[in-house]
């Protein structure tokens, strides 16, 4: 029994210097196992609970009138949780000792909350699995161990609680520890430990217990302070840096500055290192590693940094900088273990957004390999779908190539989420088991590219022109075509070969057989992109004016240009939908609103604005300004 009087201790001395290390811990277990009490005890005995928080707990405990201080009240933060006396959601708690800072993701243990447990485990260095000493290793303990190993949590600790209720019996503990270890080993867990505790009385939580002198291991807190996590982070020696954001200051001091911002997801990047850009395949050398606090010689795991490269490559968000000797797999087909997170079950054959590292594209679920019964952990190969909290293995096909590692190799570049495009919910958490290199070649191996006798550079030199593509994307009636044709006229009058490929014009021929479904739009964008590519190769400035609503499709065109070594300028004609609708030059918004046409971008179909276009034109500005800005951007990118 814990009383208020026990808590009037002196605060733990906190050094001015910050503790040197951070440990992320996930806990799984139910209220019945005494999990919340254990956490309350850890927080309390490490002096992480302050007086007013404790007083609130005392007040509520007193109101309930069972005379016991309910430390669980410290962690159950939501009204519904306090009212029902259960933990529903993941709660994050923080405490520190002189040696380490701890982030504790407290997750409910019940099978109905498997997804919350998966969430907590996804970022954890260590998982605590609570076991009631009277019950031994139950189905749910096995499930918790299984999830921890599925999520590749490097260390798993079985906390055998309520030892006071089994008279601190050594035999009982040994039997449970052995049971748990043998099961955990079968799930592939790397490092498994067991510690006997009584959370209620504090035995072996912070201090070693006198009641269990047969136990010669560390207390739980001491173990958390000592466990070696540095090597876990060193493990992933292959260099990975998913590009998040391209930094281009656009000011005089940094006119040519182009930095690729991201967080190191594996290995150590050093100045002078060769890197390969995945999926594009381009190679370069690290020229500089920039931070606000100065340039670095090297950048290790988890550091946010900005990379400058020796070559002027066109790298955008979603590409991964990697070690050329062991790059990630470029794959469209993948096999993955997933946890289904959404109320709405998996639609077999359904299409979802897939977000892996910093790239988002679409993916189709091509098959369900098996579903794991989370109670028995048996695999059922007969089930065709996954429901909420189900764990299973899927086959997926991505719309664009992804740079992937297996999750076993890298917990960042081997993980993904699936998003439902209609509800916008995060519906699945995925871990790559196998990524299939270069699946579905677009070109039959029997088609051999006809190599012209004339090199592109010779052609361009002879005609005194250089080709490139300007891609205007934006909502219908945003002003793309007007800007495109004005620019074309201006350039042609100045003696520059330029040619507009307009979406509406193309619909009369090249893309005349296509409808307006997502697939048809993707194909329409692909064809327009290929036509622009040929014009650019021939030495013409191709000016494409096309709604091209999906980022993935536009990115694919950009990558085609990069692969062919041709310039590509993405321009977002960013006119608010209200203004587009007012203009409604072709009366299409009115028809869409009236329900006469469906799948109309901006009305009932999404427009995915480019997150980082080369140029953004405010479509409600003047035409002259827009064209002048475009001309300037062409100059800046050396495309004129």
């Amino acid at each position, binding site marked *: 029994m814990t009383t208020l009087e026990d808590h009037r201790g002196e*605060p733990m001395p*906190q050094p001015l210097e*910050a503790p*040197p290390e951070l440990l992320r811990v996930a806990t799984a277990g139910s209220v019945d196992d005494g999990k919340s009490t254990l956490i309350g005890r850890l927080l309390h005995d490490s002096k992480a609970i*302050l*007086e*007013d928080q404790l007083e*609130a707990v005392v007040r*509520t405990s007193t109101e309930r009138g069972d005379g016991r201080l309910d430390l669980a009240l*410290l962690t159950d*933060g*939501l*009204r*519904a949780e306090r009212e029902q006396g259960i933990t529903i*959601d*993941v*709660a*994050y*708690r923080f405490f520190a000792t002189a040696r*380490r*800072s701890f982030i504790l993701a407290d997750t409910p243990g019940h099978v109905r909350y498997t997804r*919350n447990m998966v969430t907590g485990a*996804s*970022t954890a260095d260590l998982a605590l699995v609570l076991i009631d000493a009277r019950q031994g290793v139950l189905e749910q303990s096995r499930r918790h161990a299984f999830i921890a190993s599925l999520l590749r949590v490097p260390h798993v600790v079985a906390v055998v609680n309520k030892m006071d209720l089994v008279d601190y019996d050594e035999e009982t503990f040994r039997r449970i520890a052995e049971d748990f270890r043998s099961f955990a080993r079968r799930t592939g867990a790397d490092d498994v430990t067991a510690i006997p505790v009584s959370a209620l009385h504090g035995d072996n939580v912070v201090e070693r217990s006198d009641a269990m002198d047969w136990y010669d291991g560390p207390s739980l807190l001491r173990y958390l302070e000592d466990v070696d996590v*540095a090597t876990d982070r060193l493990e992933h020696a292959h260099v990975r840096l998913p590009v*998040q*954001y391209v*930094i*281009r200051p656009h*000011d005089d*001091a940094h006119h040519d*500055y182009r930095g690729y*911002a*991201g*967080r190191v997801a594996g290995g*150590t990047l050093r100045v002078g290192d060769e890197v390969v850009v995945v999926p594009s395949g381009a190679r370069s050398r690290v020229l500089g590693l*920039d*931070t*606000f606090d100065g340039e*670095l010689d090297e*950048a*290790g*795991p*988890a*550091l*946010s940094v*900005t990379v400058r490269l020796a070559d002027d490559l066109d790298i955008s968000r979603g590409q991964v900088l990697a070690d050329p000797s062991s790059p990630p797999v470029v794959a469209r087909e993948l096999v993955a273990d997933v946890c289904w*997170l959404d109320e709405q079950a998996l639609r077999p054959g359904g299409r979802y957004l897939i*977000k*892996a*590292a910093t790239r988002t594209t679409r993916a189709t679920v091509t098959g369900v390999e098996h579903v794991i019964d989370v109670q028995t952990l048996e695999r059922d190969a007969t089930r065709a779908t996954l429901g909420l909290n189900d764990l299973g293995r899927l086959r997926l096909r991505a719309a664009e190539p992804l740079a992937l590692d297996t999750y076993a190799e890298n*917990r*960042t570049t081997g*993980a*993904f*989420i699936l998003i439902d495009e209609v509800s916008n*919910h*995060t519906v699945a958490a995925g871990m790559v088991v196998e990524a299939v290199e270069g699946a579905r070649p677009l070109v039959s191996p029997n088609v051999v590219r006809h190599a012209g006798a004339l090199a592109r550079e010779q052609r361009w030199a002879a005609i005194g022109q250089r080709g490139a593509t300007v891609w205007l994307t934006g909502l219908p009636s945003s002003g793309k075509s007007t800007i495109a044709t004005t620019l074309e006229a201006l350039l042609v009058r100045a003696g520059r070969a330029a040619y507009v490929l307009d979406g509406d014009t193309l619909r009369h021929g090249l893309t005349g057989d296509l409808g307006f479904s997502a697939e048809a739009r993707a194909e329409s964008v692909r064809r327009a992109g290929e036509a622009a590519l040929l014009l650019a190769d021939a030495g013409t400035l191709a000016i494409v004016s096309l709604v091209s609503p999906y980022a993935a499709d536009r990115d694919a065109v950009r990558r085609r240009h990069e692969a062919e070594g041709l310039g590509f300028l993405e321009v977002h004609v960013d006119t608010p*939908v209200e203004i587009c609708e007012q203009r409604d030059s072709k009366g299409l918004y009115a028809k869409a609103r009236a329900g006469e046409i469906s799948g109309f971008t901006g009305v009932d179909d999404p427009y995915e604005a480019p*997150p980082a276009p080369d140029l953004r034109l405010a479509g409600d500005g003047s035409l002259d300004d827009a064209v002048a800005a475009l001309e300037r951007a062409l100059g800046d990118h050396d495309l004129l």
Partner: protein
Amino acid sequence: MTDLSYLRLLESEAIFVVREVAAEFERPVLLFSGGKDSAVLLRIAEKAFHPARLPFPVMHVDTGHNFPEVIDYRDRRVAELGVRLVVASVQESIDKGRVQEETGPGASRNRLQTVTLLDAIAEHRFDAAFGGARRDEERARAKERVLSFRDELGQWDPSGQRPELWSLYNGRHRRGEHVRVFPLSNWTELDIWRYIAAEDLELPSIYFAHRRSVFLRDGMLLADDPVVPRHRGEEPFETSVRYRTVGDMAVTGAVASTAATLPEVVAEIASTRVTERGETRADDRFSVAAMEDRKREGYF
């Protein structure tokens, strides 16, 4: 291999979040009150895009009950960074009849800020708002996501939150909906102070011990100022105080302190036995679920 100290890890994580949101959202904004958490947040954003400027504006929700030192500080930082400042005024919301001034004991403009904030988000069509909230502040916040979704009415649904796995944030939203982004979710109050000390970050002077005329109410020291009408028996006196949080003057209490330098403040925070909200925010002491209720409505 460089092994990162835990403060650098927290910093790197926060920079990662800021860059993700800048890349995936069209119109982000950073909420900047001039308080210590938003001062750290602004420094993180500055670091995230260096050497470029912030690619989004900052917004101050101005209660009108400000400490002048904080407004000075705000304007100085904004000028240093060359960012655009948007001021959303609670006074204007009152003048336009969008909200009514609270009266009676415990009255403040704290809750009114929600309407002003949501109106400003709608007016400027912001789709993501960075805030400096931390999970250690309060129990309801311990359950909040890094990217916290708000519906078209600005409301938070704590039981319908999207699971957040690894560092894969899902910012998808419909027009009119927006996302609150909390890059400092995993920081504690002590981490904030240690970071401020490590960065030698400037803060408004009220965070450090100074002489001030105050009076005692509900165990808190409130500033003796026209915006905080004194009740009978509340006599002002001068003493050495500092503030642990910055908010509406009417409900933000000072603590008696002689900590005048950053190391002294860090030492004081490290040995405190009371949370910052419990000690200095009258509005959070009304009920155990006060914060959860305000957050549901769309509060910071």
